């Protein structure tokens, strides 16, 4: 079944972008990468809804096939176990995104607002709706329990200041997937000087997220 799918893909888009000719196995690997990156990065990363949608499609497809199989078939058991594992990764990924949205909602919405035309969106449409609703509910709640009893000049609250920003200076562990040269490392103390490091493919490092944030979104490094 997976064979058929990957062949379909390569037949249709022979010279199209890589995403189109991904085999299901590569798709699952992409999902796992996105899962780990999202788990370990201090800020919300760009949404990967194309991966999520494809995985959902695969799962629905497989589940529909399993409906037709009679009970007690050994193969069906294997497929169910695999589906459960993929589902776990998928929901863990989406859940960690929602947690970050809840934690940083004003900043997430602010970035979404200031995003230029054509720039990819940070949030999927569903997540955007969730963030807006969360914002509105938090505001209503604060007003109902406290703010409306305050003197009028103290009734406004600036959410952007009230909710802490993601700390981009946190350290992260990472593995290098594509060789990088001359990454500037800022010193911890004033006595030390800036220095640069080269990131060899396959090597593992501990450093500040801010330095390598662009490499995470381009896929050149994997957070671990």
């Amino acid at each position: 079944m997976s064979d058929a799918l990957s062949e379909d893909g390569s037949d249709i888009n022979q010279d199209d972008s890589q995403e189109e000719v991904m085999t299901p196995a590569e798709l699952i690997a992409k999902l796992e990468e996105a899962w780990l990156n999202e788990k370990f990065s201090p800020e919300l990363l760009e949404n990967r809804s194309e991966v999520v949608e494809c995985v959902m499609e695969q799962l629905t497809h497989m589940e529909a096939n399993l409906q037709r199989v009679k009970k007690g078939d050994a193969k069906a058991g294997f497929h169910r176990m695999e589906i459960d594992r993929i589902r776990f990764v998928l929901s863990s990924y989406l859940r960690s995104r929602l947690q970050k949205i809840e934690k940083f909602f004003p900043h997430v919405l602010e970035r979404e607002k200031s995003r230029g035309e054509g720039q990819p969106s940070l949030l999927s449409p569903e997540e955007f709706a969730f963030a807006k609703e969360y914002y509105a509910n938090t505001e209503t709640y604060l007003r109902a329990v406290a703010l409306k009893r305050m003197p009028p000049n103290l009734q406004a609250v600036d959410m952007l200041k009230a909710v802490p920003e993601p700390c981009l200076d946190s350290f992260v562990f990472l593995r290098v997937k594509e060789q990088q040269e001359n990454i500037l490392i800022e010193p911890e103390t004033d006595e030390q000087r800036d220095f640069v490091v080269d990131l060899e493919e396959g090597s593992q490092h501990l450093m500040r997220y801010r330095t390598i944030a662009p490499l995470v979104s381009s896929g050149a490094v994997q957070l671990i």
Partner: protein
Amino acid sequence: MDPSEVEFLAEKEFVKIIPNFSLDKIYLIGGDLGPFNPGLPVDVPVWLALNLKQRQKCRILPPEWMDVEKLEAMRELERREEAFAPAPSPYYMELTKLLLNHASDNIPKADEIRTLVKDIWDTRIAKLRLSADSFIRQQEAHAQLDNLTLMEINTIRQFLLDSLNCMYKLRSNRQPASAKSRLADY
């Protein structure tokens, strides 16, 4: 990250099993497996191997590195070297635990292997603690951690990263620029 999630990732590794049933090739989303023939070794992911083993449908062949002599050599190397030696497998601790807990009857000298792997683990964790200590003492901003496995990183992650963040906050508060923005907050 929860240790069980690291174990989850380890379960994707492949092991050889000898099935006692026959089944055609199966086409999983993550790749094809099989065909399964009684008595013929076949590669499957650990999660499937353990499931089959629990249902007494197969015998698990230990991975190549899970061998007393090889592990003894690695233990010696690990004790001799100051840096981290290459780990027996990127998931050696998890796989040892999983396979020995569920299939110890298929693995020769299971107890010795358990002790050896524990020794290697202890040596490596001691090194890790030492290097974390010097990392913090010297206020480094970058460290290369080749050969460290995910489970090892994971045991120190929470503590090390939280401490680094705390120290960073304390330190940046001393600097005038950020002190000003602090005042604005109050």
